[in-house]
């Protein structure tokens, strides 16, 4: 008998309401809808503004993305909203296209995909991660301020460039390594926290200790040594790769941003696109090489918007001309439940990703305005 999960229940209820497949005699009988193989999702937002011309339009730049698309589904023309990098990326994660200031450094009012998944699926914070390369502003993707969701359902966010850099290493070296916690001292500490704390102070402390340990270990894995073109993005993708291998999270968001160098350098921008593709290739290799991950992970890669059609006076590419190059992007979807080698040209938007991924995982993006990506499932 198929195990009755919330996901099965939701999917079956959807099928019933659509008047699909289930015969009346089968109502109340064991659920026969096959369980989807996907148990975890990686969503990579190429959030520095990347045109399709330099990705799927120039396959040599992105051999790994092209390979992904060949084994999965390519959406060559998802519509975007030019809301600035921050707003447009936020809209991918909320499924809502709402204006946000380019330098606005605040939580949004709407729940994010991470909150939907954690709340609906009862996921632990350790199951939902985001790695970023854009610094302070991007931690706001972790959660919104909606009263039904919020910080208790937020994702762990790690900014690769903010933490894993030479300056931070030097800071740690200056203070010396922290002493290993003596087990007896640790017990005392827990008692002290319980004596002070309200609610989950001790559980919180345990979770914090795990993240703290991860950060210290990550510092020894060479992430800080990544330098050169797209270093921030490559760190975010390196962290994503390591997180996938170590924690096998259910949801992993990756936010890249270095492509925005395009404002001043077209060649620099193309180099970032190439470097990002190579790092995505490493992440994909890690997924393919792990038997569990290979058969249970879905990956989506999508820019938040494109760039102008023509070069600016500095021989760079801005983003503000309202052209098709700016307003549509190419998105690749790869995973065990998806078609292989399909191209879907139906009218879709980047905000459809939240609804699609939530549905794929058995959650509901209640407040998202996006639809579902069609032609995805095999």
């Amino acid at each position, binding site marked *: 008998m198929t195990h009755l999960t919330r996901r099965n229940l939701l999917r079956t209820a959807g099928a019933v309401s659509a008047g699909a497949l289930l015969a009346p005699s089968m109502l109340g009988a064991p659920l026969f809808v096959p369980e989807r193989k996907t148990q975890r999702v990686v969503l990579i937002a190429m959030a520095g503004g990347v045109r399709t011309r330099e990705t799927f339009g120039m396959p040599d730049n992105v051999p790994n993305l092209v390979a992904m698309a060949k084994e999965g589904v390519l959406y060559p023309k998802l519509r975007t909203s030019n809301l600035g990098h921050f707003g447009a990326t936020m809209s991918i994660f909320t499924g809502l296209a709402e204006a946000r200031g380019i*330098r606005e450094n605040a939580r949004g009012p709407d729940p994010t995909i991470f909150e939907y998944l954690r709340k609906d699926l009862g996921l632990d914070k350790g199951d939902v991660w985001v790695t970023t390369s854009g610094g*302070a502003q991007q931690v706001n993707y972790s959660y919104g301020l909606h009263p039904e969701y919020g910080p208790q359902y937020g994702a762990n*966010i790690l900014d690769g460039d903010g933490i894993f*850099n030479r300056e931070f290493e030097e800071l740690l070296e200056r203070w010396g390594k922290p002493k290993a916690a003596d087990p007896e001292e640790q017990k005392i500490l827990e008692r002290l926290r319980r004596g002070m704390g309200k609610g989950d102070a001790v559980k919180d402390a345990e979770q914090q200790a795990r993240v703290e340990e991860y950060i210290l270990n990550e510092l020894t894995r060479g992430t800080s040594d990544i330098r050169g073109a797209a270093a921030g993005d490559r760190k975010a993708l390196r962290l994503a790769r390591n997180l996938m291998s170590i924690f096998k999270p259910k949801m992993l968001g990756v936010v890249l941003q270095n492509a*925005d160098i395009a*404002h001043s350098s077209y060649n620099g921008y193309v180099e970032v696109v190439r470097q990002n593709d190579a790092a995505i290739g490493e992440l994909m290799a890690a997924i393919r090489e792990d038997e569990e991950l290979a058969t249970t992970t879905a990956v989506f890669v999508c820019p938040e918007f494109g760039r102008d059609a023509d070069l600016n006076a500095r021989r760079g590419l801005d983003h503000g001309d309202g052209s098709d190059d700016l307003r549509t992007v190419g998105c690749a979807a790869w995973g065990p439940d998806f078609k292989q080698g399909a191209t879907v040209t139906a009218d879709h938007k980047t905000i459809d990703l939240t609804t699609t991924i939530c549905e794929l995982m058995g959650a509901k993006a209640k407040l998202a305005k996006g639809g579902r990506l069609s032609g995805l499932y095999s």
Partner: protein
Amino acid sequence: MVIGPPQPKNPVLGLRPQDEPTVVPDAALVRPMSVGDLRAVSMDLLGRPPFANELEPWIGKSRDAYVEHLLGTEAFWRHWWSEQLYYFMLIDTFRPRTDDVNEVPIKLAEGRLTVRDALHRIALTPTFDLRNPGADTFVTVVMEQYCGMVVQDAARELEIGKSAYDGNETRFLGQPAENQADVVRNCVEHKSATRHFTAREYERLTGMAPDKKDLIRWSRDLHKRPHAYVTLFAEWMRSTHYDERLVRRRPKSNRLFARALHVDLLDRLPTEDETESMRNALDGLGDPRPLRSLFARLILDSSKAPVPKKKDIPDPTLWVGAQYRRLLGREATQDELRTFVTAFHEPACRPETLLYAILSHAEYQTY
């Protein structure tokens, strides 16, 4: 440069630490400050808790006197300036470091610049231009960050601004403009910029949005007299909203945490590099608490923090009580005292263990 306990002199008001605080006839304001209020006011105005030598002179004195003592000092303006640069996301490699920019807080303290002049300078720095490259990004950011506009609702004005940025003669926000500098000037001098600045500054201080009528009055006055910012700030410090803010406690920002941890453990401010590295790393986490705890542990275990040896603490109850007051700004409860003192007597417990428990606790993340 390491900055330690100062001997401040208020260049605007001419006060020194030994000056008698002024007494004003308002019960809430002349009521003796608790150590918690003293910490909060210091962190709000200077971006750090009081140094050890500032505690004794001010505990039990009035809030109004303390505010008058700090407002308009160079330390006050340095904190203000740092907050403005952060607001514009001019951090890390984008932080302007020229002498001219470094002198802005000094000139503000001497009354040679107004807040509007200072904000204007921010958008004229090369790093602001680097941070916001291209016409679309640049004009969008100045409209949003200075005037609080939603550019999606002002698409035509954005296009006009971009045209001016590109060197075309036009009228942007009602004034002539034909280059990037005009775009900035028109935004900075626009009434909406004063209103937006006033609202965000009030919210930065109190954690609450201002009353609409008050906001109109304040921003109108400030627009006419940008030198009067300190007077307005003093009025806010006397407001009921600020009273409520003191009761409510607010989360420490990462930059405030970095500075507070240094002052609380080392009785000095971190260097700019220390602050930036620490803040940068903390900003890189959605939930920075694990890293905050790690920093606390690093400093405590480094032997650089002057923590007494266990044998040198003759009365652990007194010592624990003092740490609660110093770090959390409140008295320990009887239960807390009992728990901590019992732990203190266990062989595996070090004074650092007790301090770490406090510093890594959620309460220390607020002020």
